[in-house]
């Protein structure tokens, strides 16, 4: 039961996303309800699962998939996971409600909620994964879906650039994390989180620890917008505000710090961890807070504030005092709650006034009194004002910095106080500029309170802000304890969650921060002008775009270097590489070409055939410009290859090769009609170049040929153990056929064959597509020496007379070959080819138009029917509870019938139809009028 619920918790948003897509088309309201229901259902499941987790248990579910590679569907729910599920589903539900009112009425919301739910599912997967590789997979899901969400208004160029930037940064971080996690898994000897967390000592003492740590941290820092990867987050404000409220306060950006907290028992406790996290965290904390004040766009202010708070959390996780991770978790909760509500307030203001520029906004307290109250409370929490939740975690932060020793004992408290001052200043600006100043007339719209239900989510969140701020012991203690114990991997130090701890250092720091912040804010004009004079420094977006374009150009240059858009060049590179690999394998094996087997002897016939083949190949090579002669040479080669098949005891192959030869020669002749009988020789510079290349190409061709010959010789003179014994033994009892090759094709390996005839069908349809509507000029010279006007001639009378009696004969032969195929050489492939030849002869003898009219067959449909028949014979066994393509067979009188024959019939239909389609396609090329072009073949 637990297993089902836990998997359901992750699967729910993904399943609901399907419903949302379908319902979104019908009604906006239905999409909203189903998205909200998915979030609510997640909360209900969480409520069911929560009691044992609060009792200290860790719920784990493992569904093995590839245990040998450490790939399992493994989920776990512990305190940390529980906290995050609460944030994801709880705030997610509020976001759904909020977005329903925020998004424009003409947006059907199907696409929006689809992305949002997929994202929520990805986040849930990240926080619930027990297997690290599974977590990576969901990590990527969040990167991809956040890209889709940020670029939701895809018609807006800014949104597209912002989405691409977020994807590039978090995606690159994801790659680093992949490498880091693979290393971590190797070091720990397991990808299971429980094992990894228990082996912290082994991991920390491993020589690869620094590399692994840096890679994992890059992953976490990119996701959580830590310096120097922070720049994507302010740009991501191009996203619709509900997305920012969800992704950029409570979930996506928290995934990075979640990862740090998750791996805390395994990775923390080293100097490297301490220095990287504290320095990156401190820089991000101060930089974000400083930049937040400078932004005139209040969403930008909130974005930089988020960066700053994430820096604070990173810093806390780095400090590694007994209490600092607890403070980090506490701040994760508090920040999620007040920042989500602030983003929602920002959205309301934007929605009601039409601008986000704080220089144009003012005095909203008059027209939006309730929103103003909510905003003041949430902002107070952000600034760390007493009696609100942000104050408590900030006090814990101050206390943790005070507890440091050495140089850090003065540095960290200073950093904390400076950050606090800046936070108060930007919070004050947000409230003062937007709500308090005298009313201005610059706003695009007359502001008024938003719809009732748009404010409800904000009210709920602010209620939590106040409740936690006033009664932390009652509202948050147990959640905080259970989450912290998961991070610490053990008991939690006693928490003193009170508003007043007596007059101590943190209280002084808070007072300094509040007073200093207000003073700093009062001098903001000076700050702005100084910042203006310093210049913004490098514009991160421009720098990113520039480096992005440079990388694209670099990739293009690299590609151009390797690929001159020349088939020959690619082939030469490929063949040289092949030769290199082959020689390397051969030299490193140190073996000779000669194997122990002597092979069977060869008589005069074999020697003659081989000589004939080599001569024919030579003729084709020498005469390849003279097309007709080359095709004749090709047919000689094909016939000799058929004979080789006979010699090598492969009668089925010989039959197939012979039939294929007939069809392919007709095909080549049909195509040749459009080419001059002799290819023009190269002239001028090309002739010289061609001359040089011939020498090189001949050398390369001979080397590759010699390599292939050596390979074959080495192979056939070495013994091997065939895997065919099973096929030979089971052919009659299992497949009901004595012709083992045919039984393999239609029964044992029927699924392969199905794929192969599908390829054949695709090739035939591809030829149709390529030749459709193609018009070719006739070449000047003609093989038969006649002027091009002569192509109106009908086929020779003899041929026209002969093909009619031939049809029933050939059909009989095809039927015979087909029916005997299961027991003796033959079968669907050969029969199909013979059938094709029979039909093609009709086309050639009587002309396309006449034959079309007589046959009235749609070969494309026959192609589909054949494929359908094959699939059907595969599916029918399911009805009897047997696996796909199981064959049945029985005797009817003297004849052995097998269900695989139906499959073989499907093959025959596909083969015949493909061939007829293809060749008539080539034949129809000439049909500029009611001509009979096929006769030319």
């Amino acid at each position: 039961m637990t297993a089902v619920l836990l998997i359901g918790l992750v699967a729910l948003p993904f399943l609901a996303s399907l419903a949302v897509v379908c319902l979104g088309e019908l009604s906006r309201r239905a999409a909203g309800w189903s998205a909200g229901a998915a979030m609510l259902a997640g909360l209900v499941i969480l409520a069911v699962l929560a009691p044992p987790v609060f009792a200290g248990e860790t719920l784990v579910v493992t569904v093995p998939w590839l245990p040998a590679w450490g790939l399992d569907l493994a989920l776990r729910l512990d305190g940390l996971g529980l906290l995050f599920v609460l944030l994801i589903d709880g705030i997610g539900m509020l976001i759904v409600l909020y977005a329903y009112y925020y998004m424009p009425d003409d947006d059907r919301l199907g696409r929006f909620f689809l992305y949002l739910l997929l994202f929520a599912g990805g986040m849930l997967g990240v926080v619930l994964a027990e297997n690290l590789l599974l977590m990576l997979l969901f990590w990527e899901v969040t990167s991809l879906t956040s890209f889709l969400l940020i670029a939701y208004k895809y018609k807006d160029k800014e949104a597209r650039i912002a989405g691409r930037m977020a994807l590039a940064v978090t995606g690159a971080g994801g790659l680093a994390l992949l490498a880091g996690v693979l290393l971590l898994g190797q070091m720990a000897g397991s990808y299971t989180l429980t094992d990894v967390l228990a082996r912290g000592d082994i991991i920390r003492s491993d020589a690869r620890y620094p590399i692994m740590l840096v890679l994992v941290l890059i992953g976490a820092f990119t996701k959580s917008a830590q310096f120097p990867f922070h720049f994507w987050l302010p740009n991501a404000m191009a996203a619709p505000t509900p997305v920012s409220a969800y992704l950029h306060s409570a979930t996506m950006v928290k995934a990075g710090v979640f990862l740090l907290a998750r791996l805390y028992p395994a990775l923390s406790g080293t100097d490297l961890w301490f220095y990287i996290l504290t320095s990156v965290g401190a820089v991000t904390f101060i930089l974000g807070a400083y930049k937040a004040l400078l932004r005139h766009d209040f969403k930008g202010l909130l974005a930089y504030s988020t960066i700053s708070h994430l820096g604070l959390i990173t810093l806390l996780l780095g400090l590694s005092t007994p209490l600092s991770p607890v403070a980090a978790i506490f701040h994760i909760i508090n920040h999620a709650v007040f920042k989500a509500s602030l983003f929602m307030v920002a959205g309301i203001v934007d929605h009601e006034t039409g601008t986000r520029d704080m220089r144009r906004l003012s005095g909203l307290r008059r027209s939006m009194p309730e929103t103003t109250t909510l905003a003041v409370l949430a902002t107070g929490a952000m600034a760390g004002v007493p009696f609100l939740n942000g104050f408590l975690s900030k006090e814990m932060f101050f206390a943790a910095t005070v507890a440091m020793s050495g140089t850090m004992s003065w540095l960290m408290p200073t950093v904390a106080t400076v950050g606090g001052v800046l936070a108060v200043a930007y919070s004050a600006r947000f409230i003062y500029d937007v709500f308090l100043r005298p009313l201005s007339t610059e706003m695009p719209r007359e502001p008024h309170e938003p719809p009732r239900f748009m404010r409800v989510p904000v009210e709920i969140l602010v209620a939590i802000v106040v409740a936690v701020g006033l009664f932390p012991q009652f509202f948050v203690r147990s959640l905080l304890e259970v989450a912290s114990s998961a991070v610490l991997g053990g008991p939690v130090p006693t928490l003193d969650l009170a508003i007043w701890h007596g007059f101590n250092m943190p209280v002084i720091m808070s007072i300094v921060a509040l007073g200093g912040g207000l003073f700093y804010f009062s001098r903001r004009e000076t700050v702005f002008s100084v910042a203006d004079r310093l210049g913004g420094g490098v514009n991160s977006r421009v720098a990113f775009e520039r480096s992005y374009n440079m990388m694209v150009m670099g990739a293009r240059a690299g590609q151009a270097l390797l690929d001159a858009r020349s088939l020959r060049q690619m082939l030469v590179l490929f063949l040289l590489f092949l030769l290199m690999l082959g020689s390397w394998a051969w030299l490193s094996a140190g073996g000779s070409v000669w194997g122990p087997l002597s092979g069977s002897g060869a008589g005069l016939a074999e020697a003659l055939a081989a000589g004939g083949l080599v001569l024919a190949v030579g003729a084709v090579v020498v005469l390849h410009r003279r097309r007709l002669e080359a095709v004749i040479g090709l047919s000689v080669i094909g016939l000799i290859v058929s004979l080789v098949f006979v010699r090598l005891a492969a009668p089925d192959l010989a039959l197939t090769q012979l039939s294929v030869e007939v069809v392919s020669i007709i095909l080549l002749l049909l195509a040749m009609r459009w080419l001059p009988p002799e290819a023009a020789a190269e002239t001028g510079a090309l002739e010289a170049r061609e001359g040089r290349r011939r020498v090189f190409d001949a050398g390369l061709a001979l080397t590759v040929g010699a390599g292939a010959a050596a390979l074959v010789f080495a192979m056939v003179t070495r013994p091997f153990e065939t895997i065919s014994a099973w096929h030979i033994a089971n052919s009659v009892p299992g497949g009901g056929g004595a012709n083992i090759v045919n039984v393999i094709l239609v029964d044992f390996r029927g699924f392969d064959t199905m794929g192969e005839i599908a390829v054949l069908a695709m090739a035939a349809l591809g030829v149709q597509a390529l030749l459709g509507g193609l018009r070719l000029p006739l070449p000047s010279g003609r093989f038969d020496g006649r002027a091009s006007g002569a192509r109106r001639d009908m086929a020779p009378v003899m041929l026209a007379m002969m093909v009619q009696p031939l049809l029933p004969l050939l059909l009989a032969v095809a039927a015979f070959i087909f029916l005997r195929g299961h027991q003796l050489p033959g079968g669907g492939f050969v029969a199909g080819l013979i059938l094709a030849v029979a039909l093609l002869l009709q086309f050639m003898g009587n002309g396309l138009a006449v034959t079309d009219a007589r046959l009235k067959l749609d070969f494309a449909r026959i192609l589909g029917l054949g494929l359908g028949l094959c699939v059907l014979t595969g599916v029918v066994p399911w009805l009897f509870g047997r696996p796909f393509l199981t064959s049945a067979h029985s005797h009817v009188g003297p004849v052995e019938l097998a269900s695989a024959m139906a499959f073989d019939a499907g093959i025959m239909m596909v083969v015949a139809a493909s061939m007829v389609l293809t060749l008539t396609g080539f034949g129809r090329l000439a049909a500029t009028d009611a001509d009979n072009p096929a006769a030319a073949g």
Partner: protein
Amino acid sequence: MAMLLALMIGALVAGGVWLLLRPRSWSVVLGVTLLGYAVNLIILSAGRIDRRVPPISGGENLADPLPQALVLTAIVIGLGMTAFLVALALRGLAALGSDRLGEGPVDTLSADDEDDDGDGEGTKGA
């Protein structure tokens, strides 16, 4: 026989490779066909060549049926692929007025040189 088989396959591969490297689409078609023969023979000979009885159930010392089954479909698919290649070549001929496989100074590609066929065969001409 092993020696003769190796000789035949070597000749087919060498001829096929040489034709593939020629700058005209027709010779590429010929080259692919030759290579097709060679590859089919190589796969077949992986079942060794010393067993002389066709794989019909009941006999002794049967030839290995598995490579035969693989090659049988390969022969037919090879024909389909040849047809596709020829169609591409003709399409290229119609589009470019030449069967030359382009590179080099004479046949610089035009600006809108997006191949509409993924293979790129036959469309890279002057």
